[in-house]
């Protein structure tokens, strides 16, 4: 009981200190300047740009976003399997890959490989292989060792054991983890572009930079549709597998 009181008091103290130290301008919304600009934003926002030429551009950027997320998830799944199969000693490396968010990887890689979807794909692949590597390792560690022992007792090599005992047993779980990460990655891929790593995000930050709110609204709507569709799609696959 005492521990709870201390915890609650320190949480309250944390929130109060945060508010005191941050110098928030929460009421700047209601200053005449930003109020008029917000009203203008909103009115433009409610009239999204739906010209065919612009919609075509959005479709191209959406395809780029899908490709970024899918390809990076595939690469990460491959690396994750490799790690789970051969390199179990790399756990600390996995933690580093996982701890650094996609966006930070992306801005580091932008310096290395330049602007564009390639940097975004690599960033997603690095972060995701950290996550998937750990999930895969755990899936293999928690599975029933019986089949692997049986094969090992009949003289199978470690490669044979992996492909005929460990992998088939863990496969449904691995697929479900991978699909879950793909859902995550499509969200991340549509946001990564904000730092210049391609896809819908890059388009959004470009049009927001020019204060073209109607175009930005269409891009955000496209992002929402894309995320919803992918969620529904991978949900269906998972239910069929599960």
């Amino acid at each position: 009981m005492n521990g709870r009181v201390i915890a609650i008091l320190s949480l309250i103290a944390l929130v109060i200190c945060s508010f005191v130290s941050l110098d928030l301008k929460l009421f700047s919304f209601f200053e005449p300047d930003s109020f008029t600009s917000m009203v203008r934003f909103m009115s433009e926002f409610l009239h999204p740009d739906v010209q065919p030429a612009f919609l075509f551009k959005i479709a191209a950027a959406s395809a780029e976003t899908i490709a970024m997320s899918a390809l990076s998830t595939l690469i990460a799944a491959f690396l994750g399997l490799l790690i789970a199969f051969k390199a179990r000693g790399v756990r600390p490396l996995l933690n580093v890959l996982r701890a650094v968010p996609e966006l930070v990887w992306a801005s580091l890689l932008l310096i290395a490989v330049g602007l564009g979807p390639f940097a975004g794909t690599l960033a997603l692949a690095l972060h995701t292989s950290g996550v998937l590597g750990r999930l895969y390792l755990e899936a293999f560690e928690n599975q029933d060792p019986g089949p692997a022992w049986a094969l090992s007792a009949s003289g199978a090599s470690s490669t044979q054991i992996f492909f005929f005992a460990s992998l088939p047993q863990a496969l449904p779980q691995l697929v479900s983890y991978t699909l879950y990460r793909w859902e995550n990655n499509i969200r991340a891929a549509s946001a990564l572009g904000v730092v210049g790593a391609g896809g819908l995000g890059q388009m959004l930050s470009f049009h927001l930079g020019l204060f073209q709110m109607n175009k930005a609204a269409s891009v955000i709507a496209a992002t929402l549709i894309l995320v919803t569709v992918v969620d529904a799609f991978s949900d269906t696959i998972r239910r069929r597998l599960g």
Partner: protein
Amino acid sequence: MTSTRLADPSPALHDPASRGRFILGVMLFISIWEMGRLTEFDVNGLWGAVTDPAPRAFLLGFFPPAHSAEFLKLALLETWRTIAIASCGMFFAGLVGVPIALVLTRVLSLSALGNLENGSGWISERVRQFLRYVMIFLRSVPELIWALLLVRVVGLGPTAGVLAIAITYSGMLGKVYAEIFESVNREPTLALLNQGASRLQAFAFGLLPQCSDELISYTVYRWECAVRSSVVLGFVGAGGLGQQMDLSMKMFAGNEVCTLLILFVVLVAVADWTSQILRKVWG
């Protein structure tokens, strides 16, 4: 008779699934190839990242990390601001999320009293449906995009970060709190309501005691996520560690980036550790 059979390709060697597998393989290859083209995949570019002078200088600059007293002071201040942005954002998210979760909770509905099976009144059901859609919208737009929009409205700085976290997380908290409220045993709450307790009384004495542990544990977990995402929000100008990291990267100051990355990893580890302790306190 037997000789003609032997002349046929042996049925044992003929795999009926081979055609499907072949087509699937070709389709997979083409789609991976196409994705590689769309993402401008370039292995040579990857090699260039290590050999070109500018990126190499940047990477070599990582060691030793920047450690002048002045920079460390600045970096620590930004780390605190990151925590503060996350905490303020969570506070506002709770302020919005809790009332919405209460409205969404069908157990507390007076019009549903006595006929839970038939559902509550038509209007209140529509209001709930509408609120559910609002919640979905709030949390479906990534917080980075909210921040990007808000930076244009309220200007650069922590205000945009706090509001972005508040918006996204109120959507999540509202939904999950409502699910937690719905998942507990209804009888105590219904008994209180039937005895003439007000809805807030029924909530505070019937519903809340059953699920306070779960609520706190989830909130602390979300706070940990908010700390992570407030770092990322800094990259669009919403203040904190991320903004400083963005600045250092744009100046190609590898040593500063290295220090900030180390601080970030430590911060995430500390947030993780704190939330584990808090969750253990509420066991």
